[in-house]
């Protein structure tokens, strides 16, 4: 299947989960990553159960915050 990862089209096997994608994409600091799937944010606890489909669009973001 073809999915779009951070703007790039990529081929992945059917049945690939979000958790597997994060591992295969070698995402830095995966514990801090926020994932959007087709513009909806996915809770980190659901990464392992979220099976990707052909045409899915995935973006990885990192929390940005601080204090004063």
């Amino acid at each position, binding site marked *: 299947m073809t999915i779009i990862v951070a703007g790039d089209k990529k081929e992945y096997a059917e049945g690939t989960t979000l958790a597997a994608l994060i591992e295969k994409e070698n995402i830095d600091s995966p514990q801090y990553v926020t994932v959007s799937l087709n513009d909806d944010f996915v809770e980190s606890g659901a990464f392992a159960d979220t099976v990707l489909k052909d045409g899915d669009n995935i973006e990885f973001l990192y929390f*940005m915050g*601080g204090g004063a």
Partner: protein
Amino acid sequence: MRIHLNYDDFNKIVDHAKSALPEEACGLIAGRAEADEFYIEQVYPLTNIDHSSEHFSIDPREQLAAVKDMRAKGIAPLGNFHSHPETPARPSDEDIRLAQDPKALYLILSLALEEPCLRAFRIEGGKVRGIAIELEF
């Protein structure tokens, strides 16, 4: 290592910070990097979803939209900015603790004095390194 920022974008950061008072303001910066020179070409004023004078968190939906806009424009994410309404332009303990990207530029604008003060940093492993900002017309 040096950051190039034009006055229009500097004023955009200042205006965003002043309009957010008494809360902290925040946003993203994007542009291009050439060796150790960073050219800011786009400033994205975004919403501080903490709505606090002491904390900020960038709205993730606006962050996502900004990242897509950067990609469409062919510019690279360079880092973020936030304001300190009443404290100096240096990373707080919380800023240092929450800085997760050693490659990011962290710009802090202080409004504590009459004249706004903008400074830039990189933060890696709890260590803070200041970076010069060159304001350009």
